[in-house]
């Protein structure tokens, strides 16, 4: 049965919002845990240490800003009014799936409705560090639960491909953001050896944090069997063919979804362009110079993929 363009739009965006909620949750959780390992008495440093999170989820300008933990957690998690917060993403995913209930297996709606009620009732408790893991863990787990329900009980029809493309596109975008902001900052710091800190100890912990925020630490270790080293980490996150959060993997999966759809030409071209651009950034990953700009570029091409999908499949009367 053919999929209504309007339903395609809602499923695609439900997938993007849910992936964003999951990724942001993991990021915030990992960030808090990272600071537990790196206590600091320096009020100056404390004022700025949460800013990179805002930068990952928003724009790099936030890096130069003072931001309290409370403020950042509010903006990224608890506040349903803030664009892109976990609370808002979950609510948006719910309202998109609420209008597509007839397309997805029933349990999928129950899962997202359940999560939405939880976040509405308990989301604000993420401000409290002791409870934060519970809230964020639930979001990440339920997001994956939903994926599991669909994977095991949904027809491999056009609606499924919209879901997949939404998930992978959002995931690719998030990985480029993490690499473009956090990895770029870390590599730039490492390039300045006169900084008064113990680079080895901190770097390793920080890079582990980056990997963890993308659920990548264990798979990185299995895959490379080597030490945690900056350029290997970045290359793993961008180019690995087998890790499901690497940007390359995500783009390849979108390409595979296109194999199952009709009238793919313009979308396929945009995916190829983004993938070629990604592979051409290899040189920037060895020393981190221009890594941030390279990621901006890739991100803008991922945006073009989104535009091509929208024009072809999600707009009513698309041709």
């Amino acid at each position: 049965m053919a999929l209504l363009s309007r339903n395609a739009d809602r499923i695609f965006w439900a997938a993007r919002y849910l992936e964003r909620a999951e990724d942001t949750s993991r990021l915030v959780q990992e960030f808090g845990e990272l600071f537990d390992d790196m206590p600091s008495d320096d009020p100056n440093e404390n004022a700025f240490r949460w800013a990179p999170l805002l930068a990952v989820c928003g724009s790099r300008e936030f890096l130069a800003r003072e931001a309290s933990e409370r403020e950042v957690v509010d903006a990224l998690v608890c506040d349903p009014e803030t664009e892109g917060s976990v609370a808002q993403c979950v609510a948006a995913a719910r309202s998109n799936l609420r209008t597509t209930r007839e397309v997805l297996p029933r349990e999928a709606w129950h899962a997202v409705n359940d999560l939405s009620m939880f976040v509405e009732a308990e989301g604000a408790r993420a401000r409290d560090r002791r409870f934060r893991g519970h809230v964020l863990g639930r979001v990440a787990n339920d997001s994956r639960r939903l994926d599991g329900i669909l994977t095991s009980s949904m027809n491999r029809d056009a609606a499924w491909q919209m879901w997949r493309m939404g998930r992978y596109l959002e995931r690719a975008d998030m990985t480029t953001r993490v690499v473009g902001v956090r990895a770029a900052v870390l590599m730039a710091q490492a390039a300045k050896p006169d900084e008064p800190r113990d680079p080895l100890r901190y770097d390793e912990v920080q890079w582990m944090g980056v990997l963890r925020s993308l659920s990548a630490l264990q798979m990185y270790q299995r895959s490379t069997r080597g030490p945690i080293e900056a350029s290997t980490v970045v290359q793993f996150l961008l180019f690995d063919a087998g890790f499901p959060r690497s940007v390359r993997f995500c783009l390849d999966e979108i390409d595979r979804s296109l194999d199952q759809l009709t009238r793919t030409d313009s979308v396929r071209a945009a995916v190829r362009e983004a993938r070629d651009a990604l592979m051409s950034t290899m040189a920037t990953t060895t020393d981190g110079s221009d890594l941030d700009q390279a990621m901006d570029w890739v991100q803008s091409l991922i945006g073009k993929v989104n535009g091509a999908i929208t024009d072809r499949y999600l707009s009513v009367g698309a041709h």
Partner: protein
Amino acid sequence: MTVDVDELLTDDGAPRPAATALWELLDELGPEEILARQQATELDILTMGITFTVYSDGENIDRAWPFDVVPRIIPGDEWNQVQLGLHQRLRAVNMFIDDLYNDQRIIAEGVFPADLLEESVNFRPECVGFHPKFGVWAHISGSDLVKDDDGTFYVLEDNLRVPSGVSYVLENRAVTKRAFPELFGKNQIRPVDSYTDELNKVLSSLAPDGVIEPTIAVLTPGIFNSAYFEHSFLAQRMGAELVEGGDLVVGDDDCVYMHTVEGRERVHVIYRRIDDLFLDPEVFRSDSLLGVSGLMRAWKAGNVGIANAPGAGVADDKCVYAWMPDIIRFYLGEEPKIANVPTYRCMYDDEREYVLEHLDELVMKPANESGGYGITIGSRATEEELTACAQAILDDPRNWVAQPIINLSTVPTLIDGEMQSRHVDLRPFILTGEHSYVTAGGLTRVALKEGSLIVNSSQGGGSKDTWIVDDNGGWNGPPPQTQSQAQGSLDVGPEGIG
């Protein structure tokens, strides 16, 4: 002062035969456990996202569906009679509508007054001369029934346009099964689940000739409609598309298409859940954003089936109701098998005289007002009000009908953790196509305020599961089949389930 009649309990508080098993279980469970089960169903309703939308303070609020865990029980043989009556009624109603849009035999023969039709706001001149498949216009209808002190079910009104509530019949059953698993399986409670399948069959039968596997779409006004949950539910259960006006387009070939990721795809049957007047801006209200331009053209060309047919609402005008017994006799030559609330039409001399003599026992209603305006309740009116009402009737007899006061039956309901009796009504759903189908029971709505007769969920009413229980001594089928000894003994080990 009338005495309420309870459907589950006799006057001395003993359970009626069909309710015995339920009452024994409730006794055994005790108040705390019953309350716990009520709370569990409320949680189910929340997590399953069973909602209805109310408009309040300028906002649409999605509310959890209000539900009372104590079911309403109707004996099977009693229900069989109601079903027969509803089949009959809808058969006659559809013949009536088809007649009104074609030969108007019933008017020519003086049974139905011509001027009533002329004044009808739901008559659609655009439909004149059309014969839908099987001569059926109202494919899906919901008739509101009440049970009076005398134990009779009366039809209070027929809803022939876009009646809603059937999804809650199915959902109420789903949560009740979880609440009282002890009772299902032991008692012969008629299942309700087949409704969507029957609906699917009726809708499929409306497809243009030669279409084997029709594409069916449920046309909804959208998420802000109070019945959106139901639109989505029905589409989901039937594997149909849920569409909004903007998803559809009528092509140059007068066929209906929907916009899909693969381009345009033909739609063969539309179950519309928007009012006639919004269906097609080309023909009806030109400012409608909900409908589809050209839909009427496509329908009249036989390229798409529409349920309910545009114009079907002409038969649920309030004034038509009073003629329903005559309509049944006229088309079927039978006496009505389910009662209308007796309705006296003041335009007829003998009926008017009766009304004027019995003002204090009747409710007088102006035929052209809705929402309870201008109603005089005889038993509560002062002498002056009755005189004024009598004068109004004499001045314009055509505009007045009168009915006896019907007292709604009650069913025990959990209020603040205690069983209290509350008034109920019932909306069964009737499907009519080539054949017809009546739901086993229907949607029971309950007025949660003591003594209140207002059952609408938007005004604090609740709902109950409705059980049609057959009394044949419980389940008597063959014992369940088990694995044979030879297979069962194979290597099961100490933790096996064999």
